[in-house]
């Protein structure tokens, strides 16, 4: 096919898709097959709406919770009575610092979230670029995932976290030196304990070149690091990064086993600035179905466990806890912080903003039919990086507005004050919903 035709085809479909993303949230009904218990049709459509620049509460969509019947979907905030809330024009600080150690540089982000790792190969270069552009415009971060660092990300390097994972795919000295934060991924919530897996169909020539592997052959990142058998080994890894890039902050991404509290303490003593706990209900990449619900605990349970244990160990204020794996909305972010996290990392939410319908066909054949989780040269043209960056930025803006509103209703002038405040949460039981006693914004 000649290039003009290919460009025209991409344009034809991307225009139709953009129109669809704009129209569907406003149609008063959802596509009948859209959504699931965790990401309901309303959540997906309201995310599209926010990515478009709209206010989430428009059109009567439930934008705060899903219908999973547990975790964040069972929690609400105990807002103050109206007269006790902060005034609408009150200055509310949503920034968090990512280094609480008394040494190394101060890094602050204006919103308590950044982009979670999604590798080149699992997503297209266009998607990576869109995320990096949005991260730059919000002065926050995005993460490479384990799959290398495309050259196109270089202009955004001050906002790109370099991930090093067990397969060391695409790891080069310079991408460690460029990074303000280097993330060691020990495990991921999508497939805890199973390592990474890029199916052969997605290991294209370009992906294989970037990863230093053989094209069209499935790639496994083994689990866990072969060189880490102890906290001391872990420390050696972090020291290695510090040697290559003394300025970098160190993040450690782990999953949520029974002993997540001990893992957190180990990471602290190994020198991590950030501990990212990745719950088992998130994940964007292909994973065995058995791994998704059945291995490791949801992040809602892991956050308070880690927070309380670090408090008891009197080291809580020296390490930043970032929660991920199932963070869908601004309300989830706020609830995660109220449970004890400092901030969150977003993955699927950003993909939904770019048009993901969560159809779960990421791994099938050429990959995502929306051009997101694919490196197919034709399909990936469906995502224009600038369009994508604008949508993610719009979503961030909407999420920040919602976070400010939550804090205002709680009478808090900074997001830091929300950390660990489980007293501001309300458990929403079946009975209370049924009785109409409480909704998702409870006056305490």
């Amino acid at each position, binding site marked *: 096919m000649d290039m003009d*035709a290919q460009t*025209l*085809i991409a344009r*034809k*479909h991307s225009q*139709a*898709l953009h129109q*669809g993303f704009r129209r569907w949230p406003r149609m008063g009904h959802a*596509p*009948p*097959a859209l959504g699931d*218990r*965790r*990401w309901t049709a309303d959540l997906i459509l309201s995310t599209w709406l926010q990515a478009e620049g709209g206010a989430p509460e428009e059109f009567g969509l439930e934008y705060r919770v899903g219908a999973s019947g547990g975790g964040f*979907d069972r929690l609400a905030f105990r807002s103050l009575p109206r007269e006790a809330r902060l005034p609408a024009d009150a200055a509310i600080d949503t920034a968090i610092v990512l280094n609480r150690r008394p040494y190394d540089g101060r890094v602050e982000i204006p919103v308590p979230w950044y982009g979670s790792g999604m590798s080149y190969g699992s997503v297209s270069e266009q998607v990576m670029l869109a995320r990096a552009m949005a991260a730059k415009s919000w002065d926050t971060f995005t993460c490479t995932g384990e799959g290398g660092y495309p050259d196109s990300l270089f202009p955004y390097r001050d906002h790109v976290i370099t991930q090093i994972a067990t397969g060391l795919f695409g790891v080069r000295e310079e991408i460690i030196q460029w990074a303000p934060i280097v993330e060691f991924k020990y495990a991921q919530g999508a497939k805890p*304990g*199973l390592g990474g897996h890029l*199916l052969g169909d997605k290991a294209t020539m370009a992906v294989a070149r970037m990863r230093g592997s053989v094209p069209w052959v499935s790639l496994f990142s*083994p*689990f*866990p690091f072969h060189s*880490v*058998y102890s*906290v001391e*080994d872990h420390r050696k890894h972090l020291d290695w990064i510090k040697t290559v890039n003394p300025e970098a902050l160190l993040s450690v991404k*782990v999953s949520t*086993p*029974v*002993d*997540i509290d001990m893992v957190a303490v*180990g990471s602290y003593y190994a020198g991590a600035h950030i501990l990212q706990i990745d719950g*088992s*209900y998130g994940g*964007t990449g292909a*994973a*065995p179905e*058995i*791994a*998704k619900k*059945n*291995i490791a*605990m949801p992040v809602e*349970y892991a956050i*308070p466990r880690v927070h309380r244990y670090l408090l008891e160990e009197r080291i809580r204020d020296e390490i930043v806890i970032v929660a991920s794996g199932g963070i869908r909305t601004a309300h989830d972010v706020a609830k995660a912080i109220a449970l004890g996290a400092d901030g969150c990392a977003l993955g699927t939410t950003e993909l939904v903003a770019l048009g993901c*319908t*969560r159809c*779960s066909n*990421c*791994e*099938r*054949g050429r990959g995502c*039919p*929306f051009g997101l989780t694919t490196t197919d040269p034709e*399909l990936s043209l469906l995502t224009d990086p600038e369009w994508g960056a604008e949508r993610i930025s719009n979503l961030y803006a909407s999420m920040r507005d919602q976070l400010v509103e939550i804090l205002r209703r709680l009478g808090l002038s900074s997001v830091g004050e929300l950390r660990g405040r*489980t007293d501001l*949460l309300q*458990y*929403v*039981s079946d009975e*209370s919903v049924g009785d109409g006693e409480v909704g998702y914004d409870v006056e305490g």
Partner: protein
Amino acid sequence: MSTYRRYRIPTEPAAHRAPHPNRFCVEVNRLELAKLLLHELLHYRRRLSVIASRPCVYGVFSGPIGGFAPRPEHCVGCLRCTVEYPEVVQIRPNPERMQLGDSCFTPDLVDTVLYEASTGRVPVRGAGYRGPFGGEGWDALWTDMSEIVRPTRDGIHGREHISTEVDLGAKPRMLTFDDRGAPLGRGPTVVSLAVPLLLDRAPQVVESRGLYEVYRRAARTLDTLAVIPLSRAKGMQEVGPEVVPLVTSSEVDELLSLGWAPRVVELDGWDGAAYGALSQGLPRSLICVRLPMNQELRALAREGVRFFHLVADYHGRAGGRHAVDLLRERHHELVAAGLREQVTLVGSGGIVAAEHVPKAIICGLDAVALDTPLLIALQARFLGEVREPDSARVEVPELDQDWAVQRLLNLVASWRDQLLEILGAMGLREVRRLRGELGRAMFQAELEREALAGIAGFRS
């Protein structure tokens, strides 16, 4: 010369034979489609490749007349078409598919088992978990994983072997030796299986010689056991070591008169006299007692019974309680009596997905006997709720024996591979170590109590 043979289940594609409902219905408004095409003809003029480009990469609209005759069997529900052209096409979940299975064996689980049976592969999908947060029964339980400091690694992707071998039967508490170092008394009397999955009897309504022949052949290839009622087993062309005759008390004499010494005999219900007769008449056979899962075992174990098959209904319940609770109770009961290591527990009922196997083993089983998943793998249709073996209404299609055997091999291969995934994630090198490993299980009620304690409105 070494006789070591790495265990491997021969899988090969075995496509569905009976019609299976599509996941989605594709509804095209032909008038709107014609208008769209006309518009594109004018807009893109002669660029036929652009006009012919369809909003589907799976071929739903790639038939000879495109969207005018869509092919819903290709639809995977990505919704790209309906996002692009809401007036032209709608994708709906197929109501016919929602009739599959029953309230326990849900349509999604049916689809998963059918995929496993047709391919032998581990289901892999993107975009994370889509279901309810937790729930009852197996859904109220998560398995642990190892993070960085546990020693076992790589089992599923290479270097280390993870064993799924289990030993069924009687194991003495300890071995004793005489002055010359020779063992005294009776040593372990066990049957070792390469995979902790047995094939359990079918509901009465579908029992047939042909079906049990499929079970028997599959069990032989799998190096496992098939539990088959004596009345059916004795009519089979061939009964090998893979056949476990299931006998009632009144059938014991008949079995003994056959001159057949199976490796394992299963006695349906407790009858001391029948058990004694079997033990005496078949001294080289293991005698397993089939009991409801809610029946206490301690007294029988103290009397010397060493092998139990605990049965719940097909929804995993016995006496109104779920297997998750009952199995832990049976396991702890034997642990408290100091007998657990000497006794084998096999369980069945309500184990309808691959993840239920490791969860059942964590709760205390040594091995699992499969029941309704075998029927689903063979494309059986449930007619209403399938709960009890004697009242279940199930339709099994006419079986091509080779195809049916292959479907069961594929199913077990897939479930074993998924068991390996769980074991690998946990850092365990053998499934025997998973049994009763409750310290590596996480229960929703306990996690919730710990995480949400103190939050207003939360009651544990």
